[in-house]
C-alpha cells in the first residue's frame, strides 16, 4: 500500500485548523527553512481511508486474540478512554497553581495509594514512562540507599538467567555489574547459586515473580532473606503482576521496591509508540529517594507538592504520563477490591485451561500448574518434523490469531509462551487451542505449508537481518 506522502494531489487538502487569531510575524532569514516542507496533500476522505486501511492491516486486541506471553494484552475497557478524555484532565498543565489542579493531584495521590496497597509498598512515584524506565528508577533507589549509607562497595546486581532482557540492561545502565545466576531444573531460582553469588558487593537482586516461565517461585521468602542477609535489596519486576494482583503482595514476599506496568496489568494501551507508564513503589525506608516532587495532603485539607532533599531527582517531567494514570485509576476503581483478585484468578484459570488443552499434543517446558502464562517447548517437534516455533507462530497468522511470544525465555529452546489474559471468553480460547492443535498435526503432515506460512498475511516473513542491519525508517523524497 502507498504511504500518505504518495497519495493525494498538489493543492488538495482540508481545513480542520481554525483561522489564526494572533498577529503573524516573519522569522529572521537565518531561521527559515532552506528546503521545501513536504506535507501530505490529501482530502479528509483520503486520510480517513488511509488510516482505516492501515488499521485493517494490523492486529490488535480490538480485532482478535492476542496471547502474547509476558505482555498481558488484556482488553482495555472503553470507560478508561472516556475518563481520560474529560476536559478537566485533558486540559490541565502541570505548572498551573496547585490550587487549580486539586482533582488531578487527587488522581495521582489516590493511584499511588491504591498501588501501594496492591503491591504492599509504602510509597509510589508515577514518573517512569514504561517498564524498563521503572526498572532503572528502582535500581537508582537501591543505589541511592547504599550511597546514602556510605556503602559504596556494592557494585553488583544479581539477575536470574530467565529474566527479561531489560533487567540486566537496566542494571548496566545504572552502572552496576550484572551477575547472572542459573535457574534450577524446576524453572525457579537456584538457591545454592544465589547463596554463592551474594556477598559484600551485592547491591541487590532483580526478580520477576511469577517468573518468565509462568511459575510462582515457591522459595521466594528464602530468596529475599538470602539477599537481605548479605546486605542487598530486592527489586520486584512487576511484568507478571497480572497473575497475583490482589492475591499476593511483593511487599509481603520481602521485596523493597517494585515497578508495575500500568499498560499491562492495569489496562492502559500498549505500544504503537503510545505512552506507557511504569510506576515505582518502595518501602518507607526508601521513599525519601523517590524522584520528583511528592504529593501530600488529603481531600479535606487539599493536596500540595513537597520536595525531598534526598530525592534522586526527576526521571521524567512532572508526573509522568498523567492520562495513562487516569485510565489505570479508572480500571482499578471499576474493578474494586473484589474485582482485582477476581481478574488475576481468571487470568490464571484461563492460562491453565489452555495449557491442559494444548498439553494433549504440545510438550510443556514445565509440566506443572502455571500462573497467568505457560511455555511450550517445540524442540522435539522441530527435531522430528523440521517445523520450528517460528513456523507455528507464522501459521497462526493465517488463522487470525496473534502468535504467542517466541524464543523467550531463552532458557527454553523453541519456546512459545502463551498468556491469554482474563478478558478472553472460553470460545476464543477453544478456537485458538483447536488451531494450535491443528497446526501441530500439519507440522507432521505438511511441514512445507508451515515453512511457507503465513499465506494470507499482508507481510509474510520480513527480512529481519536487513531490518536490524540496514533499517529504512524515513521516507526520502526524490
Amino acid at each position, binding site marked *: 500500500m502507498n504511504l500518505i506522502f504518495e497519495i493525494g494531489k498538489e493543492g488538495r487538502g482540508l481545513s480542520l485548523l481554525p483561522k489564526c487569531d494572533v498577529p503573524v510575524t516573519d522569522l529572521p532569514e537565518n531561521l527559515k527553512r532552506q528546503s521545501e516542507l513536504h506535507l501530505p496533500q490529501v482530502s479528509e476522505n483520503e486520510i480517513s481511508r488511509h488510516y482505516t486501511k492501515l488499521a485493517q492491516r494490523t492486529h490488535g486486541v480490538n480485532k482478535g486474540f492476542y496471547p502474547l506471553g509476558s505482555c498481558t494484552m488484556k482488553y482495555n475497557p472503553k470507560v478508561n478512554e472516556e475518563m481520560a478524555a474529560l476536559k478537566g484532565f485533558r486540559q490541565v498543565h502541570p505548572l498551573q497553581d496547585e490550587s487549580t489542579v486539586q482533582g488531578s493531584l487527587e488522581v495521582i495521590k489516590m493511584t499511588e495509594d491504591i498501588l501501594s496497597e496492591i503491591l504492599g509498598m509504602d510509597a509510589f512515584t508515577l514518573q517512569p514512562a514504561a517498564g524498563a524506565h521503572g526498572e532503572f528508577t528502582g535500581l537508582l533507589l537501591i543505589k541511592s540507599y547504599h550511597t546514602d549509607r556510605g556503602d559504596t562497595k556494592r557494585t553488583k546486581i544479581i539477575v536470574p538467567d530467565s529474566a527479561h532482557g531489560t533487567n540486566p540492561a537496566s542494571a548496566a545502565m545504572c552502572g552496576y555489574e550484572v551477575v547472572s545466576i542459573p535457574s534450577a531444573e524446576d524453572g525457579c531460582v537456584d538457591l545454592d547459586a544465589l547463596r554463592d553469588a551474594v556477598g559484600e558487593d551485592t547491591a541487590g537482586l532483580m526478580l520477576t515473580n511469577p517468573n518468565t516461565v509462568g511459575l510462582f517461585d515457591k522459595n521466594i521468602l528464602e530468596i529475599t532473606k538470602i539477599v537481605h542477609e548479605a546486605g542487598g535489596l530486592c527489586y520486584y519486576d512487576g511484568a507478571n503482576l497480572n497473575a497475583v494482583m490482589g492475591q499476593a503482595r511483593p511487599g509481603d514476599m520481602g521485596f523493597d521496591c517494585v515497578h508495575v506496568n500500568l499498560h499491562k496489568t492495569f489496562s492502559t494501551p500498549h505500544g504503537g509508540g503510545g505512552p506507557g507508564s511504569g510506576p515505582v513503589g518502595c518501602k518507607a525506608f526508601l521513599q525519601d529517594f523517590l524522584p520528583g516532587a511528592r504529593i501530600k495532603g488529603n481531600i479535606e485539607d487539599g493536596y500540595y507538592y513537597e520536595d525531598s532533599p534526598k530525592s534522586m531527582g526527576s526521571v521524567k517531567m512532572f508526573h509522568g504520563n498523567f492520562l495513562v494514570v487516569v485510565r489505570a485509576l479508572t480500571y482499578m476503581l471499576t474493578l474494586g477490591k473484589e474485582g482485582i483478585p477476581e481478574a488475576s484468578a481468571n487470568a490464571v484459570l484461563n492460562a491453565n485451561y489452555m495449557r491442559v488443552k494444548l498439553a494433549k499434543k504440545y510438550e510443556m517446558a514445565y509440566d506443572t500448574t502455571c500462573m497467568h502464562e505457560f511455555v511450550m517447548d517445540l524442540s522435539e517437534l522441530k527435531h522430528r518434523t523440521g517445523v520450528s516455533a517460528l513456523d507455528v507462530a507464522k501459521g497462526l497468522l493465517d488463522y487470525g490469531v496473534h502468535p504467542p511470544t517466541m524464543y523467550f525465555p*531463552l532458557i527454553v529452546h523453541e519456546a512459545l509462551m502463551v498468556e491469554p489474559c482474563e478478558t478472553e471468553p472460553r470460545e476464543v480460547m477453544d478456537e485458538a487451542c483447536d488451531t494450535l492443535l491443528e497446526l501441530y498435526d500439519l507440522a507432521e503432515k505438511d511441514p512445507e505449508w508451515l515453512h511457507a506460512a503465513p499465506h494470507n498475511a499482508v507481510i509474510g516473513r520480513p527480512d529481519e*537481518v536487513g531490518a*536490524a542491519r540496514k533499517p529504512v525508517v524515513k521516507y526520502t523524497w526524490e
Partner: protein
Amino acid sequence: MALYFMKSHEWLNELDDNTVTIGISDYAQNELGGLVFVNLPEPGDEVTVDEPFADVESVKAVSDIYSPVSGTVLEINEELLDAPETINDAPYDAWFIKVENVTAHADLMTEEEYNAYCETLAE
C-alpha cells in the same frame, strides 16, 4: 585443522603452541539465527577461561561468547563487525579473535565428541 569445542558452542583452533583462534560452531549459528551485530574486544585485552569476551546479537537474542582459553588478544577479525552474516555463512572460517600467550585451557571436546553432544541437545 583440528577444532576443539566448548559446551557453550565456541570452537578453538590451535595455530601453534602459543596462538589460537576462536569462533562459534555451526550448531550455534544455526540456533541463533541471522546475526546482526558482533561486539569484539580490543587487541591487547586479556581473555579468561570460561569468561565472556564478546557478544553477538541475532534476530532472536543477544548472547555472550565464552573464551576457551586465557591469554592476550593478538588480533580481532574486524571483517565481522561490518559483515556479521559471515558467521552464519561460514562459521568455521569466521574466527572472532586470535589469542597469544595462552596460559590456560578450558575442558574441551574433540569434533566427534562435540557432534555427539549436539545430538543429545536436539533430543
